[in-house]
């Protein structure tokens, strides 16, 4: 049973689907706050979503240890699916992970627990893929920084607790820090560490 779930649900056209997903992520990372739709999706076992699974297929492989939050790690089918389709090993600790996936961002451990990179090699840091239900119905975030002409807005939910404060700390560690990819049914957006975030009310 487990096996049949594990081997199904990959990309229909692996080479071309991976390319469209990557381009969506690249554009999202290059222009924080923009929402990208229409990329190829995967059909993973729940609670991993088709969008998060597509990101995993596009970016993860044997060379990228992956960390799963407890709601994803609890599902054997999710672990088996990721192992089969990406070959990515599970990271022993969040600090070892190149990619981290969370189906429950609200209860995500603090961003500082993930690899931040070093001052010499800030690229040796984690990319966090957060499954959110929505990119426009949450608390309004005002974004500024590279990739943004003046300001951009995004209102994802749910987000990790005290997100704005956590993000300010993450941004303060620049060039070290983590980058976020937010995935929802409504599309994909990204928050690189270079982005400054303030709340709409402020």
């Amino acid at each position: 049973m487990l096996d049949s779930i594990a081997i199904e649900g990959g990309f229909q056209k692996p080479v071309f689907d991976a390319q469209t997903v990557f381009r969506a992520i690249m554009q999202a990372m290059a222009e924080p706050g923009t929402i990208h739709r229409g990329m190829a999706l995967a059909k993973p076992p729940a609670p991993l979503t088709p969008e998060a699974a597509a990101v995993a297929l596009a970016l993860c492989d044997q060379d990228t240890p992956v960390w799963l939050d407890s709601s994803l790690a609890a599902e054997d089918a999710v672990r088996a699916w990721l192992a089969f389709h990406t070959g990515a090993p599970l990271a022993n600790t969040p600090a070892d992970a190149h990619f981290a996936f969370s189906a429950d961002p609200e209860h995500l451990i603090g961003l500082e627990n993930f690899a931040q990179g070093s001052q010499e090699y800030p690229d040796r840091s984690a990319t966090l893929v957060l499954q959110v239900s929505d990119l426009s119905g949450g608390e309004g975030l005002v974004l500024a920084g590279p990739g943004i002409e003046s300001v951009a807005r995004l209102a994802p939910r749910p987000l990790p607790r005290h997100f704005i404060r956590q993000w300010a700390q993450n941004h303060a560690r620049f060039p070290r820090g983590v980058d976020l990819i937010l995935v929802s049914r409504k599309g994909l957006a990204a928050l690189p560490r270079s982005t400054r975030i303030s709340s709409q009310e402020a």
Partner: protein
Amino acid sequence: MNAHTDNIAQYNFAYLDEQTKRMIRRAILKAIAIPGYQVPFASREMPMPYGWGTGGVQVTASIIGTDDVLKVIDQGADDTTNAVSIRAFFQKVANVAVTTHTADATIIQTRHRIPEEPLKSGQVLVYQVPIPEPLRFLEPRETETRKMHALEEYGLMHVKLYEDIAQHGHIATTFAYPVKVEGRYVMDPSPTPKFDNPKMHMSKALQLFGAGREKRIYAVPPYTRVESLDFEDHPFEIQTFDEPCALCGGTNVYLDEVVLDDRGGRMFVCSDTDNCEARRAEGHRGHLSGEEAATV
């Protein structure tokens, strides 16, 4: 042996295998997230020599899809031999649509120039980079330059530029003129003439830089501050030309000097051939363009 020769032509879409593309794609994302920082990547041997655009080709091969329209320029021109060769490579291995029109391209791979026509949102400019480290000619050791970037210790570069001023009265760097990205990393813009530096600042296009032999990828996202290093009393200046393009009459563009004879005869024409052709199609004429020459 026949088995080898039969199988030898089996290449993936865009030549690179998927694992290599994923590795490069991950490096590109980090490069975008840390503007101006050089991300080390496991550059592959390509079927063209190191130093001939293998970095740019690997970046292009990793981002290109079937919907893309590719333009390749070298020295600003679409018809220089290496540009022709790289364009033909992607037509062969990715069967991708190509163009010479800057505005029609989704991906532009370039060596030594930035197109004159302002780039648009959604376009990607891929630079071929020979030596990605702006500090390399001041300090040949990677172990040292990496520390300097980590500590944001760029004094050496300022000293070098200032020595120029002391000696010549102005900065004597005309291409690969160092820039600072978003106030943090000093970056090599690749060997483009400094004329092109201002185009990088707050560009609407994503700029990706690939250095294959040196195994580095770096990026400037759209709308990112790119400032050429200078001093308050010696502000950065770009090259100017005394005459317009002899073919299209264009001014404020970068010109190539063409030697006409061995008696000092020369003319200046646009380096950006697409821009020049478009201007001529619009009816602009320079003093040596066909119609005028015919009436003389």
